[in-house]
């Protein structure tokens, strides 16, 4: 499963640390941050549970105010899991 997300930071977040944590994660691709502070990322997971877990992990990072799902791609192997 592939999902693209928008990560919104809190006004005083330590964005550099969060960006580093996201970039280090093997299942996460980090996009280019726009001036508003919104960061596009793409995550890849084997099944829905893992996808939800990654989403929740990002949302729990210090300084992350919100995570918005843009798109979810699923195929037959994991669509029902």
């Amino acid at each position, binding site marked *: 499963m592939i999902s693209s997300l928008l990560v919104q930071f809190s006004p005083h977040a330590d964005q550099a640390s969060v960006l580093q944590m996201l970039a280090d994660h093997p299942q996460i*691709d980090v996009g280019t941050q*726009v001036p508003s502070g*919104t960061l596009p990322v793409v995550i890849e997971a084997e099944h829905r549970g893992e996808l939800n877990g990654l989403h929740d992990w990002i949302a729990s990072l210090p300084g992350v105010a919100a995570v918005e*799902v843009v798109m979810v*791609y699923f195929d037959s192997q994991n669509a029902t899991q």
Partner: protein
Amino acid sequence: MTTACSDRRIPDNSTLARRQFIKASAMAMATTMAAGKATGALPILPAATVVSETSLDVVWNKAPCRFCGTGCHVQVGVQNGRVVAIAGDRDAEVNKGLLCVKGYHVGGILYGQDRLTHPLLKVGDHYRKITWDEAIDVIADRIMAAPSRFAFYGSGQWTIPEGYAAQKFMKGGLGNNHIDPNARLCMASAVTGFLATYGVDEPAGCYDDLDHCDVLIMWGNNPAEMHPVLFSRVTDRRLRGEQVLMIDIGTRRTRTTEKCQHYLEMKGHGDLAIANGIAHQLIKNKTYNRQFVEKYCNFKAPDDANPNLHGRTITFEEYQKLLEPYTPEYVQQVAGVHAEQIVMLGELFGNPNLRITSLWCMGMNQHTRGTAINNLVHGIHLLSGHFGRPGDAPTSLTGQPSACGTVREVGTLAHGLPGGLVVSNPQHRAEAERIWNLPAGRINPNPGYHTVLMWEKFCTPSDQGGDIDTIWVQVTNPGQSLPNLNKLFRPKADLKEKFLIVSEVYPTATTQLADLILPSAMWVEKNGMFGNSERRTQQWFKMVEPAGEARDDCWQTIAVARRLFDRGLDGMKDRDGRFIFDVRDQDGNVVAVWDWEHYYNVNVDEFLFNEYRAFSRFKHKDLAPYAEYVKARGLRWPVLEVDGHWRETKFRFVEGADPYVATGKGIQFYHSSTNDDRAQIWFHPWEPPAETPCDEFPLYLTTGRVLEHWHTGTMTRRIPQLSRAMPGAYLEIHPEDARQAGISSGDMVDVESRRGTIRLPAWISGRGYPPQGTVFVPFFDEMHLINDLTLDAHDPFSKEPDYKKSAVRIKKASGQ
């Protein structure tokens, strides 16, 4: 808002590349959204959020996407009478489960907060709610007062049955041919190009060509933004390691250019010289396909004394002579491209081992020499023999979901009848009258007014030759999309004798001048059928109820027809005195489909489509019975029954692929205008555009679309994610032109042509990159109507205006 897509048919050997593509698409989509959040949104009322959480009580069904002419299929998830999810349809050949950023959000178009929900009649300076019954009476009154001064303005977004009903109502009922669609503004030149070349309309090839071509040439075409799913079919091949040479011929760099190995930046109308330059190279180097030409082609040149689509026949030697001036150096001079690039194109077309596909859309069609450039591109494919094999095809794309199905096939153009027949041909009229069971002579032999003329007549006082008094607009927004709005639309405001009826979904630039507004059902709020760019006819069923009192456009047409029938208008009766929409149930009983309460007692679409099918055989565009389309994700015509199965046709005119090609013929152009099974290779000279920059107006203005919005934006601007991503129109300008005018990005700029002025923010090095001397403005934004500036000059054959080449001047707005 979350969207979902799926694909269960990923080939194992390309899984990695496929996933890389999906990840790249996902990132692009997220980045687009993020960029949109960075800018202030315009005051657009938001669409309701479409939730894609899949649960057991969500019912899924198929439908083609509502937007462009690609014809992607989506799966629509409905829960509690509401569209709650959209997914790419993995069983659809066109898109194989993928969608573009607009497609993923298509469900949101239904739920803008400002949906029109009641018929509204203008009384003085305000609108009064009226009943449908009153509204139908108002329309009937206008028609009865002057049937010949009534016009119907439709759309390539009409479903096939809607367009067919309007067509029959006008030409078979009123005997009035003043019906024309907005597709006149986008693909009429493709029609005349096909007719003049092959004797019959629409592409020979299909999207499969994109899977097989070695070279893809895009002529004034930006599919990366306008047909992204089709474009991804080619870029996806590259991700799998295939070699595809992509060439962009255009007047400004776009997102398509970024993926191309070659970019030919031409001056406006340079395409005419480029095509002639390629033909010149093929003949000079003796690399044209002599055998193909001798077996399958004739040569034609314009008949200047009697301009028409047949032209005058010329010999190969005359053709060769006419091309002599088009050396690479001359082409460089008039088209602005490098001479070596012409040599390169000549070598590509001269290589028989390559497979070459040409794509085009508005760039070639919105052109005062649109028919000519269409002819010329077909001509270089024929001359070089790059025709008739998968991947070897000249293919036009359409911008609307049913420009082909409803306009070109149903024939809702001012001169047309269904199935490629025309009103000026007595035999064609007789056939239509037979199928419609009309008295002989009912159909008027004179073509009606084409779009530009129709609106010009409407905007001219009745006592000064303006002989169109009432126009009924369905499924389109001419108040924004017509060229030269200050001439073709806005004068209506001061002409009290004129009456504008608009069937619409949302308030638009057109409804602002409407005298009667009718709320329409849209997309999956009604049954429908579309025909996409590759001859594929598609079907869907109604899934949710329309908003408020909104009703189907098709019902509206039938209801008005019935009101006229009840008032005794002879045209609404067939030769046996029966209503022209004589819909019957399975037991043969008349169903009162003109009464909304009974409209869905039967499937009116099925009734109309199966009647319309009879027309499809005249030009070998055979359609299958309605029930076959219910089962399929579309079928490409001609569709013939073989051994009990309905078989579609991928490639026309080719033995083995097209059932109408006789055995042993190889290739057979069986509708040849010269009646010898040959296509016509045309010569047309290069000519300058209708308007060119001068000292007073030193810049070219070109207009177009953007990825996030579909046409005039009435649907996509009500989807918050898309509206935020691309909130408003802008002036795209070259840095040097900006520097000379003292303009920085974000500055407000006054843009002025001979016809009007607007004020826009400048964007330097933005989405696209126009060359020095050219500016670009998209037309999706009703708050910045760029068509106040465009000119209404049009092609002499297709009558399609040129939106791409107006002369303008710019000035930094005062007070900054």
